[in-house]
């Protein structure tokens, strides 16, 4: 018996060793080194930050690596951004330090992280991902912590310490309609994750749909553990829809699109670019040609002519040496981590007293900042928004419309941006940002 237990232990250790090596290990990469990415020259370089000055301690709570979701790359992206910005002078000479907290995608884990930040010496958080929004929000709000970037949920919208970049997962849900409607698709099926939150969505979409003369023909829930995705494409076609808006997990998105390809479905699709990288998009098959993506931020490997600073983003990521930050692997979430750090530098560097490294100072700086230059990645940004309605607190309501050519691997981004607040209110005509 003892021998068997020892054998079992040996087996477990072997399994652990197998788990230790990832399938794409940097050390095993025998390929040619990536070419150095050209920087834009837009970012000020004031030399390394001064480590003798008080440090801006920044928190970041997100699930690192779970079976369902993994945002480890966003943490890596934040660390890469912080390292890079520190080398360029940090926040007015102050160094930035990241304190990441793994939520394990568990509500208790999120609360634990929130308490940790609230009780610790973190002065702000960036790019948080939470599902237990109400209690995390209240904890961080009570603690007076500014939350920059991140994926705001319903409970987060409208709070005064949240400065999201984009409309988050909630905004993404609604923004998948206009791209289809604008191309003349008036009958749209919603293929969505089977959760209670999405069941209210068709009702809330009514003003938007009316403004575009469109209708939702059917809400098609996608359950976990689905085997055959063709049933969803067929259900959408059956309902008379000419287009389908996908509000699904990345795992399901690829399979739905591939199912459409197998069925040679003429359906047009719209979905959030979300956390899909180039590698992910290549898995979507040729059906991706029928897809219009919406995104709060430009594709990371998008046009450098239009967004020169993307060169700096990629260069900062490259400098980290992390495999999940290679150009083919980065996604919008990683970019938002970088942008959150940029926001800190831009806002706090121009704040009244950058040497006041306190929660109040950070919160006040973001609350009063206006027209923050994000180097064109998003329109000129005033972090605090206090408008009415569900998305009144979204300070950056602009979305890009993106298509992808699988053959060339290139993105095409429409010049016309979509406005979440206007669209949600049923206003289809609105001025574009300058």
């Amino acid at each position, binding site marked *: *018996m003892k021998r*068997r*237990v020892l*054998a*079992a*232990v040996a*087996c*477990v250790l072997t*399994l*652990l060793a197998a*788990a*230790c090596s*990832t*399938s794409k290990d940097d050390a095993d990469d025998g390929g040619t080194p990536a070419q150095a990415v050209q920087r834009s020259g837009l970012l000020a370089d004031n030399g390394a930050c001064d480590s003798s000055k008080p440090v801006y301690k920044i928190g970041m709570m997100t699930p*690192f*690596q*779970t*079976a*369902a*979701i*993994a945002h480890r790359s966003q943490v890596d992206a934040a660390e890469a951004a912080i390292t890079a910005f520190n080398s360029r002078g940090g926040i007015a000479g102050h160094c930035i330090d990241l304190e990441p907290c793994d939520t*394990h995608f568990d*509500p*208790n884990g999120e*609360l*634990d992280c929130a308490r940790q930040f609230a*009780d610790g010496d973190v002065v702000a958080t960036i790019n948080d991902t939470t*599902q*237990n929004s*109400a*209690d995390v929000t*209240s*904890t961080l709000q009570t603690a007076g912590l500014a939350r920059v970037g991140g994926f705001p949920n*319903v409970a987060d919208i409208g709070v005064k310490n949240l400065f999201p970049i984009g409309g988050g997962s909630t905004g993404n849900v609604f923004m998948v309609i206009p791209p289809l409607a604008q191309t003349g698709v008036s009958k749209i099926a919603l293929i969505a994750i*089977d*959760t*209670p*939150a999405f*069941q*209210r969505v068709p009702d809330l979409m009514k003003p938007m749909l009316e403004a575009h003369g469109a209708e939702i023909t*059917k809400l*098609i*829930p996608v*359950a976990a*553990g689905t*085997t*055959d995705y*063709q*049933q969803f494409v*067929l*259900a959408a076609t*059956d*309902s008379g829809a000419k287009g389908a808006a996908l509000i699904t997990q990345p*795992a399901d998105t*690829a*399979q739905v699109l*591939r199912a459409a390809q*197998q*069925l*040679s479905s003429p359906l047009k699709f719209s979905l959030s670019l979300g956390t899909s990288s180039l590698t992910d998009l290549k898995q979507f098959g040729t059906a991706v040609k029928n897809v219009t993506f919406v995104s709060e931020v430009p594709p990371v490997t998008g046009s450098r002519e239009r967004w020169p600073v993307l060169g700096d983003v990629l260069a900062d990521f490259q400098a980290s040496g992390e495999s999940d930050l290679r150009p083919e692997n980065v996604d919008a979430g990683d970019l938002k981590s970088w942008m959150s750090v940029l926001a800190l530098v831009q806002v706090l560097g121009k704040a009244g007293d950058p040497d006041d490294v306190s929660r109040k100072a950070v919160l006040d700086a973001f609350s009063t900042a206006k027209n923050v230059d994000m180097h064109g990645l998003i329109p000129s940004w005033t972090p605090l928004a206090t408008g009415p309605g569900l998305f009144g607190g979204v300070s950056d309501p602009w979305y890009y419309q993106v298509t992808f050519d699988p053959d060339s691997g290139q993105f095409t981004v429409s010049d016309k941006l979509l406005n979440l607040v206007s669209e949600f209110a049923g206003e289809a005509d609105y001025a574009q940002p300058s």
Partner: protein
Amino acid sequence: MQSFLQFLIVGLGSGAVYAMFAQGAVLIYRGSGLVNFGQGAIGTLAAYVTFVDLQQDRGVPTVPALLAGIAVAVAVSLLFQWLVLRPLRSAAPIVRVIATVGLLGLVQAVVVQRYGATTVSVDEYLPHDVWIVGGVAIQEQRVWLVAISALLTGALWAWTRYTRTGLAISASAQNERAVQTLGWSPNRLAAVTWGLGGGIGGLAAVLVAPLTGLSPVGLTIVVTIAALAAALLGGFSSFPLTFVGGLVVGLGEALATRYNSDIERWLHQSQITGLNRAAGFLVILVVLVLRGRSLPLRSHVADRLPRLGSGVVNARGVLIGAAVTLALLFGVFGDSWAQATYVSLATGVMVLSIVVLTGYAGQLSLAQWALAGIGALAAGQLVRHGLPVELAIPLGVLITVAVGAVFALPALRTRGVNLAVVTLGLGFTVSEVVFANGDYLGDGLDGGTRIGPVTLFGLEVDAVNHPHRWAVVCLVAFVVIALVVANLRRSRTGRRLIAVRTNERAATSLGISVVGVKLYAFAVAAGIAAVGGILTAFQFSVIKYDRFDVFTSVSQVGFAVIGGLGYALGAVFAAPNAVGGLGSEALDALFGLGGWITIIGAALVILMLLANQHGIADVVVRHHRGRAAARRAETPVELAEAERVAPATLRVAGLTVRFGAVVAVADVGFEVHPGEIVGLIGPNGAGKTTIIDAVTGFVKPSAGTIHLDDAAVHRLGATRRARLGIRRSFQSLELFDDLPVEDNLRAGSEAGASRISWLTDLIWPVSRPLSPTALAAVRGFELEEHLRKLPGELPYGRRRHVGIARALASGPSILLLDEPAAGLDEAESRELASLIRELATERGMGILLVEHDMPMVMSTCDRIVCIEFGKVIATGTPDQVRGDPAVVAAYLGTAEPESESEPEVVDAGEGRAPAMSES
């Protein structure tokens, strides 16, 4: 029509995949008696190795990569069987099932760590043309999947039917020891089934990967829910029926997606969620419940369960434990540790519900966490609508108790692995249909039930802002419920639960309502689960229900097994294992394990099971057991004299029993009067036990009447007949092996306890002495020194005595003894005969004695009925029957020349009968 056919084809394709996974599960079950929850995870690993490690990273061609991936699945399965299941061969089946849950967790965690959570799409490699037939697109790939699945089904069927190894595997599942005597090694057979079953799982995974993509959890869900549902329809034994089951599930899914809107309109619902996942399962559930039996067959062997605790409360230990916890909470623990404490305590409450339902009542339900969610939903909605928390919680618990009784309904017709899978499906259905439907949860966009910060009796106790206070609330709940569960164990009601757990047939024969016990166990466990769910959900201001998933239910059973399934104390050791509980907090704090916690945790589950299959509580308690037993043994048992029973006559007329086309008993009639011993003899297979089964209500007669005095009992159930005074013993003893002898006798005499005792036993389990009748049985069978022992500790003869004493304990008017002398030596038989005679003469019992021991029968009985092929061929006094030519020809045979010694006479007071000489 086109649309319908299109969905049909989609459904057939996915159904074929479910069937393949299910065949692997069925094969493993047939060979080892286990449901392998790790099947999906093994398949997932095989698929990742095939498509990522080999094809993508190393450019290995498709076929060799597929074969290598399947080989990995075979290897992992074999390793698991050799390293884990073999050492656990003698463990209770539930322990081995939990080991497979550990396998699931470990392999899945390794996959996540190695490959990440990102889904990987897999290109199709089977031929994938599209044929358009009548406007319907038929995909060649789906046809291939159906064909492969059908071929696999046929191959497995033929193999298990026509090959020696296949037959041996099937036989091994029925009776391992018998197969061993035929020269087959059960270990080798189990290894073959595990290897093959794992390989089939790998094959299914690599075939389905182009449809589903690769993700760490996708296939686990498919296998756990859809494939097990298909296996359930096949009874975990028939490959063809399993294939059909898979298709049913797949078709149900596809057509439910197609007609979801129509069904919503038909049922006047704005939305129905989860119907596509639940549809197939619900069909299978209905079929099973219709097909099931309320009582197990004679051949049914109850699954062993881990050891039981005594329920004795160490008051000092409880106080010290509570005090230490409070001291740590308010003296040492910061918010993180306070949070870990209340998370652990809430899990501990859940574990207690499993102890009651599975540990005590033997009902393996995997729906407890769903019931916890129901409790949270009920209480949460009441709070949302303005009811104070102090009222909402008990009302939520009561509502859940009622729902729990509904969940018990499948348990009335199914048992064992079927029950486990059915409850898994029920829990899954609840989470898909109820917890995913916003109409039931609340009106917010957050998809939950908003309850706000919780206050109790004016004190703010919300976990977000006051984690220490919430931990105290959880501690109080845990301690109170643990005491209630311990009370239950020590009580009459607890004995009833354990009687049903151990042997439903024997329990019924003693007047214990198996239906009542199961309903009660499910209801009480549901109430406790509701408390656990409320403690978990009320930690947050918005209750989200996606956490109440079936996999957590399975994990919690695992925690209970590790802690000690039969011990209320087990919850203390199980609780820290919770995700985010004290265990993971400690591991993280000490070793900074981070993302490795899941792997370490899963590995620890397996290692802890290997170390002690009865749980940690068993180890802790055992060294106290000797001292406690000695203390109890000192308490003298006051014996009483026998009382006469209420006289009654048993009249059987025209009794006919059919099993299909076979007439087992035909037109049998006899009477048993008070104080009379009637022998029932006949060759093996004559129908003697069937007659006893029919008289006691275990078998329904096709014709005939059975009266107890003037009361017709042939339409009454077995429980009712037992309570009216008809009791029996069993050929195969069928004792309650988990209860000491004293409690076996108590179970025999407590069936008539008042109904209020079901409730009062939770609060104040009254310790009554053994009834005078039971004590008389103790005296009569000289069991005084053996009362504290478990039946397994007694020699065979003594166990026979316990079986009879148990049947006697309530003082029945009519006692039916089924081969009570089987396995006894001559002296023991004579002693038994004397006791039987005493029961008739001293106590006035009417006794029907079925025996093959002719000296005993002839010397003990007043009259004898002889049957052959289910018909009475002779009836009369022993002398008359002995000399009857038909009896001689059918059973007794030609008499040997008489010996010169005088025939032995059994002196039992009145009613003496001469003993028949040995022939």
